[in-house]
């Protein structure tokens, strides 16, 4: 296939510019510094969105991640077409992100402890949950179940993927069912809620952590703001649907900055070790 395309280089490889303006404090941030700072504004602490890969790199012990099921790709079950076909949107997102869908899961070690982990990528169609995201979250929970290890899911998603219709909706039951089996087996599940975690993702696995950890100021809610503010005429309270709002109403255990997240999760894993499990952090970590 000898093709010549006006392909734009990907941002990581050739940054289109060297600076990024912080949307929160308007400070111009040098991209290299921003990356070194885990994509958190050094001036105001604004947490930029990051890819699933960057998230896993930040959280897991170097070299321990073994991805599973990376080849899963949606089949466009409805043949959905709006202003353009869903199939085209999928290919565009795949080419842009280098991923086949919005979730990445596998086994790895965090602070020396083996975990099953799944991270969502907002950059792939808004991190929306269709068949593949639902399947990967479910397989991550099943992987944790089989190995009797903790599960971590890092969410960053606008919700269910409309283009897969009720099959996307059914992913709520599928993922929750897997979490119920994990729970019955006495295994801990930590849900990390990054910006944004909304709609059907929040109303399924993201809300159900034994521990819910959120990044500062992350948008977390069920109904879209457009709906909340439009359909139902009602003045929205300040900080509505932000991590701190969820915290003050009792739906988030901890708000943790990205710089502290890895250590915080490591400590939680140590304290929430499944009953009867040995502490593998001091010994050798199994590689998957």
């Amino acid at each position: 296939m000898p093709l010549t395309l006006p392909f734009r280089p990907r941002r990581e490889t050739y940054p289109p510019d060297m600076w990024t303006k912080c949307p929160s404090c308007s400070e111009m941030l040098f991209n290299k510094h921003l990356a070194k700072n885990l994509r958190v504004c050094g001036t105001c602490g604004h947490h930029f969105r990051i890819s699933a890969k960057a998230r896993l790199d930040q959280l897991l012990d170097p070299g321990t991640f073994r991805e599973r099921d990376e080849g899963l790709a949606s089949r466009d079950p409805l043949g959905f077409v709006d202003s353009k076909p869903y199939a085209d949107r999928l290919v565009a997102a795949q080419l842009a992100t280098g991923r086949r869908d919005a979730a990445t899961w596998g086994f790895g070690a965090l602070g020396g402890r083996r975990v099953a982990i799944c991270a969502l990528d907002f950059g792939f169609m808004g991190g929306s949950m269709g068949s593949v995201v639902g399947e990967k979250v479910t397989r991550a929970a099943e992987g944790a179940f089989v190995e009797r290890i903790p599960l971590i899911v890092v969410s960053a998603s606008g919700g269910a993927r409309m283009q897969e219709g009720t099959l996307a909706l059914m992913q709520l039951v599928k993922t929750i069912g897997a979490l119920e089996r994990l729970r019955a087996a006495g295994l801990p599940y930590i849900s990390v809620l990054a910006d944004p975690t909304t709609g059907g993702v929040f109303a399924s696995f993201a809300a159900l952590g034994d521990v819910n950890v959120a990044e500062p100021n992350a948008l977390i809610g069920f109904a879209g703001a457009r709906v909340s503010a439009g359909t139902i005429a009602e003045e929205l309270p300040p900080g509505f649907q932000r991590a701190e709002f969820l915290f003050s109403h009792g739906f988030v255990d901890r708000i943790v900055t990205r710089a502290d997240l890895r250590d915080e999760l490591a400590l939680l894993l140590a304290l929430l070790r499944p009953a009867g499990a040995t502490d593998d952090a001091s010994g050798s970590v199994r590689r998957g």
Partner: protein
Amino acid sequence: MVDRLLGRPRDRETAPSAPPPPEDPRDAVWARVQLARNPRRPHTLELVGHITDAFVELHGDRLFGDDGAIVGGPARIDGRRVMIVGHQKGADTDENIRRNFGMGKPEGFRKAIRLFELAERLGLPVVTFVDTPGAYPGAEAEERGVADAIARSIGAMCRLRVPIITLITGEGGSGGALAIAAGDVVVALENAVYAVISPEGCASILWRTPEKAPDAALAMRMSAQDQAELGVIDRVVAEPGEGAHVDAAETGRRLRAVILEELDGLAALSPDELVAKRGGRYRVFGAFDDLGVTEPIPGAADRPGLADRLRRALEPVGKSVGDALGGRTGRDGRDARDAREGRDAREGRDAREGRDEPPAREEV
């Protein structure tokens, strides 16, 4: 299970003959949406009156309050005890304000959980009636954790050790519907609809105007018949005459017969079998291929040549459980053509930045 994988409705004998050949499929599905929303359509309590010999409504979630949009309580049908849980729309404006148009609030879903657990304790099968535009999208619902309540209600249904029959009688609107719709058997009335988001909400996001709601309704295949083909609904029950609103009593009689039949079918299963079978019903939903795990994904950090990237993106090397569901549109020629035209490059970058897709937020 095989039927579900093949996308065949399990049961066709009660399915209505197809409606007269529609002039335009968009008009046909939109007519169904209108029927499902018809204010004169019998709602849960009216149907329960026709279906049951006795029913006592219970109120309150024991945590915050009572939600008029979700009703429930123990009942008797043909001498058999069951637990009823359902959305409740109002018959007129006053009642709709009181019942919030059938849009559940957290306390409604938590009342449902309370009733599910009571049913389990007493060994009562559960019958749920689904008829809602969606969960209430207001600020107070967010404050009290509507997502948490929905997720926990679904979780309660996943582990419940008694049979659950779900009847979609009108609007099956998104997560607010699903919260009480994760049954062993999912039955729908002929003019009921079921969707991940309201057609107006879908149209507003993807078509940028709610005017395109009929297009969205068609694209989402939200009619009961289409949902039966997808396997989301097991059984479609014909409505009398022009629709349930012309004869609520007859609609109730038909639903009653279906409930009794399904109860008989589920009675043969032990609690363990029930939970396992229900888990299996929902575990298989999804339509995806496994394109293989050996190569870096196209566009990954090592930046293989574009030709490789396209080839890897377009060539399936394996197939998975979801095969039977999809496959209506090939991803072959069209994608390659668009890529050749370079359209994906620009659009892909937009997607990367999260601009192409407005966040696919659910309306409810």
